[in-house]
């Protein structure tokens, strides 16, 4: 057992896990129709690569990833594609579930590139909630040295038991998946962080830990407290390393994976099965048969809840995700995605609607529970006053939106909503600012191009005039305006310096982040070059006319 390091804050909400973790894992029925959104992960949505009318098998790729942070989407049932829109693909099933599998691989014998390609073409993303593409996460080794892989099995949110159940059913497979990911990123040790409210899962893991090779596996049982499972807090608790503000765990040599992701990654490699189904918790008082189910992606939430005995009369709301961080669904006419880990069909008494908010009484309760040691009260004031610089000063973007502050607030202020809105607003402002900057650069480029074209036209006219003059003999030179040679020379030197500076900036950025596109910097360089050309032309022309006027004198 490893020593644990204390972290601050946190709350103890009622767990309510027993309703769903008493039943063994079950299989949800095969849906007759699925709707698969093209964006089921962080980053850019996939690009559909099927057309309506096409026949697909379970596991056929229907959307390709677009860019680096994106993931493939696969058909989760066999049947006919009926609709392809900008956001989703709809498949009408044939009920046969014919499978399309990739060649099974033995990860111990396969090289890293093949494994990464397999994770890529299987569409595996982090199933814990953020949906970060697994292949991109594994490639972090290109930039950071990783020494520890953490299996985040804390599952600290109330109600959710999906990780608990798969750890009981597939402990060996999950550890093997962890070993595979650890060998991919060069981690020498694997740590499992699990809360002490999952004795069955802990027992199952203990049985398989000893045989797990090659990385050393340690099991750390941590006290149950919300939100102990937040990535940065877990790293602090297990390793006493602090992930920097706005940084990634990889900055301190750690990768965190959810057990479900590891299981999906292993299945993708070992049995060649793309990510087409996931385990999710269906619970809440308005359901008669709660439990954990293997559910095909794209299944309608309405049909799924009907299958587990939804009592519509009792239902007050359906929450997707946990009660602390999840969203209340406005409509049940929505599909299950790679990120749907839990559905809570709650009745009125279970998750009562929040009472109306009263003004803040400055009690400070939110500050003492904040796990990332922010000042929620100050953030609340600044968010309402729209003081954006103060919000950034108080590290709004380090807020993990765990909801502990809203939970303890005696005035029932929906604090996390305020923070989310403020974050959205700030992000929107950044996007707008970047767009304005881009438009400005394009405008400057156009101005420079027009100036260069004008200078070229002048030069041509001048050349023509000069030619006409020499052929017609010694007609009097037209009174060319004596351009100030000195100021033109200064302008040309400045343009040269600008080109050099733009080249240097572009080279530096290209070295620092070779994966990103540098269109904007390239355009600035092009602008500087156009300016230089125009300056060159003007200078040459001025010199010529100066020479001509000297000769004529």
């Amino acid at each position, binding site marked *: 057992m490893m020593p644990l390091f204390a972290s601050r804050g946190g709350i103890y909400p009622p767990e309510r896990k027993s309703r769903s973790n008493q039943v063994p894992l079950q299989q949800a029925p095969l849906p007759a129709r699925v709707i698969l959104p093209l964006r089921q992960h962080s980053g850019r*949505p996939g690009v559909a690569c099927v057309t309506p009318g096409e026949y697909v098998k379970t596991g056929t790729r229907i959307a390709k990833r677009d860019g680096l942070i994106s993931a493939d989407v696969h058909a989760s049932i066999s049947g006919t594609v009926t609709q392809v829109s900008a956001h989703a693909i709809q498949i009408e099933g044939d009920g046969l579930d014919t499978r399309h599998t990739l060649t099974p691989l033995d990860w111990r014998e396969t090289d890293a590139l093949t494994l990464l390609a397999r994770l890529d073409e299987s569409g595996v993303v982090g199933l814990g909630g953020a949906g970060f593409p697994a292949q991109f996460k594994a490639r972090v080794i290109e930039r950071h040295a990783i020494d520890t892989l953490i299996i985040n099995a804390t599952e600290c949110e109330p109600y959710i038991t999906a990780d608990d159940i798969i750890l009981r059913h597939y402990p060996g497979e999950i550890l093997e998946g962890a070993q595979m990911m650890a060998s991919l990123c060069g981690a020498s040790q694997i740590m499992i962080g699990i809360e002490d409210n999952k004795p069955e899962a802990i027992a199952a893991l203990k049985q398989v830990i000893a045989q797990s090779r090659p990385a050393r596996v340690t099991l750390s049982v941590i006290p149950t407290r919300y939100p102990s499972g937040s990535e940065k807090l877990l790293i602090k608790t297990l390793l006493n390393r602090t992930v920097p503000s706005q940084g990634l765990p990889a900055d301190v040599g750690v990768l965190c994976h959810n057990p479900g992701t590891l299981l999906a990654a292993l299945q993708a490699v070992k049995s060649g099965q793309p990510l087409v189904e996931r385990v999710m918790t269906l619970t809440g008082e308005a359901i008669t048969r709660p439990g954990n189910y293997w559910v095909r992606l794209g299944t309608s939430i309405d049909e799924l809840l009907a299958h587990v005995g939804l009592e519509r009369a009792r239902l007050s709301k359906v929450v997707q995700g946990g009660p602390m961080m999840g969203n209340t669904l406005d409509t049940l006419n929505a599909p299950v995605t790679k990120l749907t880990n839990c559905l809570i069909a709650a009745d009125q008494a279970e998750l009562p609607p929040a009472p109306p908010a009263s003004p803040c009484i400055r009690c400070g309760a939110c500050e003492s529970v904040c796990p990332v040691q922010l000042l929620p009260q100050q953030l609340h004031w600044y968010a309402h006053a729209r003081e954006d610089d103060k919000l950034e000063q108080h590290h709004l973007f380090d807020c993990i939106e765990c909801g502990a502050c809203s939970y303890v607030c005696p005035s029932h202020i929906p604090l996390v909503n305020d923070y989310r809105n403020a974050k959205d607003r700030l992000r929107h402002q950044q996007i707008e600012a970047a767009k304005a900057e881009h438009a400005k650069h394009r405008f400057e480029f156009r101005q420079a191009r027009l100036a260069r074209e004008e200078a070229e036209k002048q030069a041509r006219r001048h050349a023509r005039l000069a030619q006409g003059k020499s052929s017609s003999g010694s007609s009097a030179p037209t009174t060319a305006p004596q351009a100030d040679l000195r100021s033109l020379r200064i302008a040309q030197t400045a343009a040269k310096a600008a080109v050099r500076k733009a080249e240097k900036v572009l080279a530096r950025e290209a070295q620092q982040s070779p994966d990103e596109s540098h269109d904007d910097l390239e355009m600035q360089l092009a602008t500087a070059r156009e300016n230089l050309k125009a300056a060159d032309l003007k200078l040459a022309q001025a010199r010529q006319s100066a020479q001509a006027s000297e000769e004529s004198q």
Partner: protein
Amino acid sequence: MSDAVSLAGVASAIGILTGLGVGFGALLGAVSERFKGEAHPLVDQIDALLPQTQCGQCGYPGCRPYAEAINEGDALNKCPPGGDATIQALADLLGREAEPLDGEAPEQDRVAFIREAECIGCTKCIQACPVDAIIGAAKQMHTVIEDECTGCDLCVDPCPVDCIDMLPRSAPLTHWQPVAPLAPGVIASDRHPAGGN
């Protein structure tokens, strides 16, 4: 005697102080030359606050010329795309009084769209576009690159066949903004109790 001493003392004091003044002056001059920061003239700062649509609704050919005009004392309220937020930001920067907007702020972010079937390929809109967002050639169909269009509508007037429309911009889902929450300041008991009778 004492007079001579005090005279020498005064002379040396003046000498030392003058020397110190010259010495430190030279030091300051050298340091300010050596560690010269990136120059941020006021025009650049003003330009950074403008929305860069390059629409010319202010009466100047682009945002930069307007920034220069503001620096020379022109009014702050001539930028409809920027709206009140830009006026406020400019007023804060320049320490001037914010004035109400001269003109109407656009309700919605718009983008130019060419009805391609009607386009005759005259290139007039291409010449008008301040950010090169229209592609096409003489007697060939033109089209607008939506991501580059700033919605300035300078291309609409030159079109001889009126085939350019200003349409609402299609925002990607990732830019979705939540509906603004209830304004602060509403007394709690005035709200309709959630899920109540």
